[in-house]
């Protein structure tokens, strides 16, 4: 008896040697997504990422709310990097509505963005550690993250979803003794960060496991459209903060971290080294910031954008985040399109995992600096 298949459908040929594994969505090493992995023994034959389990329609929701109401829900895709995902939206709306931002607010926005970048990278590093079975590297960053969460709580009043950046500046001014406290905590954190080096990055087992696995060459990294730390780990010197400086980044003193190797180890190390640069930026910004002044330009009630469109992007913890905002003389945006680093880095996962060992899967997967919720938006 034969079954007639609908036209265009065909049965998959089954190879006895190949086993199909559904890594996720209920798998401790997957996140909110699924990887359909085919393995031949211990080697991965093919990998098919299947994101979309946490799609929330942020872009559509943005079309029904006015420019100010959009702030709290647009930060939901990455709640622990909320300042950075709101940053390009604020920049774009300011350009659309023609708002000037006070000088002090620009510095405060940079400080908030860098604090948030550290929070994100520490979270990422904690999961990287536990993915590789290193439980101490899970506990330490997860604990040290509290330093920055406390600072942002003092700034904005919320521990994770800050909604601190608004078009026209920041929501409220810094508390009275913030600068001194911030400097003290950042300096302590830099000391702690050096201990990570000894326990994790110089660990011979970690090096043996991640060095030389999942190599992404410079040309492939550009061709596949990767961004952020993945791109910089493959030897491409690209950072939006340097190439298209926004707010006051051009006045601040920092470097772009670039590594040549392009393997899992380099991809795990670039964000770690970027945290040192973030601390430098914070300290520099605290020094150069105007000590007093307005932090928020007052907007008209229910401001309307012109018949215009704008694209602005910033460097987040996971790479460039771009917002394409179209307005048509209404208080709500006509269209908001978010281009996120996570999704662009996910594209190279099948290329990297093909031919790898199954044991390398967590290191390659999490090294891509991929956050499923952000990719689905």
């Amino acid at each position, binding site marked *: 008896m034969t079954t007639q298949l609908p036209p265009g459908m065909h049965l998959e040929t089954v190879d006895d040697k190949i086993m199909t594994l559904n890594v996720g969505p209920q*798998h401790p090493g997957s996140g909110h997504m699924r990887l359909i992995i085919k393995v031949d023994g211990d080697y991965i034959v093919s990998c098919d990422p299947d994101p979309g389990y946490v799609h929330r329609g942020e872009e559509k929701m943005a079309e029904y709310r006015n420019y100010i109401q959009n702030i709290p829900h647009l930060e939901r895709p990455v709640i622990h990097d909320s300042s950075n995902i709101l940053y390009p939206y604020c920049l774009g709306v300011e350009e659309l509505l023609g708002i000037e931002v006070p000088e002090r607010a620009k510095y405060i926005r940079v400080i908030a963005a860098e604090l948030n970048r550290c929070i994100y990278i520490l979270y990422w590093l904690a999961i990287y550690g*536990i993915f*590789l*079975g290193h439980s101490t590297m*899970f506990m330490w960053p997860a*604990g040290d993250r509290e330093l920055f969460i406390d600072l942002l709580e003092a700034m904005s009043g919320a521990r994770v979803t800050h909604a601190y950046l608004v078009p026209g500046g920041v929501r409220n001014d810094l508390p009275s003794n913030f600068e001194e406290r911030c400097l003290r905590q950042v300096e302590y954190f830099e000391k702690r960060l050096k201990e990570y080096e000894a*326990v994790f990055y110089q660990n011979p087992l970690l090096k043996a*496991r991640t060095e030389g696995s999942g190599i992404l060459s410079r040309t492939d990294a550009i061709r596949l459209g990767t961004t952020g730390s993945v791109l910089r780990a493959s030897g491409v010197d690209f950072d939006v903060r340097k190439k298209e400086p926004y707010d006051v980044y051009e006045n601040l003193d920092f470097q772009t971290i670039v590594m040549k190797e392009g393997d899992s180890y380099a991809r795990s190390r670039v964000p770690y080294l970027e945290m040192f640069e973030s601390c430098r930026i914070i300290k520099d910004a605290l020094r150069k910031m105007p000590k007093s002044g307005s932090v928020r330009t007052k907007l008209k009630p229910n401001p309307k954008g012109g018949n215009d469109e704008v694209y602005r992007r910033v460097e987040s913890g996971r790479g460039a985040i771009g917002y394409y905002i179209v307005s048509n003389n209404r208080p709500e945006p006509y269209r908001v399109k978010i281009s996120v680093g996570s999704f662009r880095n996910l594209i190279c996962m099948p290329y990297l995992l093909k031919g790898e060992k199954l*044991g390398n899967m*967590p290191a390659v997967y999490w090294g891509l600096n991929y956050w499923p919720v952000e990719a689905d938006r």
Partner: protein
Amino acid sequence: MSTIAPQFRLSRFIGSLFDLIFWVILIFSLVGLPIVFIVLFYIKLPVINGQLMTPYLAMTWMADPSRTLPIVKNFMHTTIFKVMAFPGFGFAALLAAATIFVERKFLAKIQLRVGPLYCGKIEGILQLMGDGFKLMSKEIIIPAKADKPIFWMGPLLFVGAAGAFVSLIPVAPGWVVANPNVGLLAVFAVIGFFPIIAVLTAWAANSKWTFIGGLRALHQMVAFEIPLILSLLGVVILSGSLNLSQIVVSQEHFWWIAFLPIGAIVFFITILAELERVPFDLPEAESEIVAGWLTEFSGMMYGLIQLGTYLKLYAFAGLFTVLFLGGWNGPMVWPPFPQDIITQGITIGPVTAKFPGLPLFDQEMLNGTLWFVIKTVGVILLILLPRGVFPRVRIDMILHTGWYKLIGLAFINIFIALGLLYAGVLGPGGLLH
């Protein structure tokens, strides 16, 4: 609002309890007591020391230490006590559980946490017990497509094999459950069971993750069994015996770790791999294959596997102590039993109690146990410590280490042992023997 018993009334509950007690007393006195008397009528009671051994007399004997202590002492030398309590199961489980608790607190301190804190008031000392009770109360879920008899058998076999391993470890002079002359070969035989159990249960669960985990466990254990056996041959060559108790006796003056450090290191690494501890915990690698060959176990089946793992941990640490660290040998630190308790008894106020059966344990046994426990706990802590600093290794790295590096080191260790033997330094008739 409680939805469990909405019609609950305390007075009715207490009333029902009284009803229950009334009926129990009534039925017992009408039915139970006549049955007891009928049975006692037909049983022939023994006559001991010219007295008829009635149940009342037996009860008075239980309060007399001069009569009960010899019975207790006799019981302590029976096989069932050895298997269940002292050198066997109970002792091993208690020691392993205590060390696991210390390890959890210790690891928490490394990771800037507090560890178990609330269960048992004092620093969470009852946490392990709480975990055990939780596992007992959980439902056991068997996969629909599982091969059920083998799947059920897996945890029992695992605990059985671990218990067999524990029974071979000598704790103090004469205190060992099984003391065969080929003790070390018996140990190798028991260790050989574990990969078989892992693969059987992994296959029987009929899941992809357990299958991959089982094959990983098989590869890892087989790859590390050969360096394990080879690393222990040096000890056998030097001590000239396969009997574990005699190996301990042969270390009266020198511990073998002083002459065979390479063998000890190789054996220690193979212990980590056989126990699936970090950094060799890849049969249970969470981020790759969920929980490996334990994925489908739930409730007390998982609890039994954990219990078996603890017993195995104790047994391997004990084996390391016996073979390399001199077992029960150590300076006599245990105070001798005060003689005046035996001769004069204990006087509390007007009452003087005499205990002619004392002491229950001799001094050497207590001293030997003390040293054995100290050394074993140290080894267990060393086994658990890498969890704080190492990530997991990959399967090809582990096989490379096992088949290539450790076997080479184990052979070097054997050559060192042979050199010491033929140079006449150690061994029967040697300089230092």
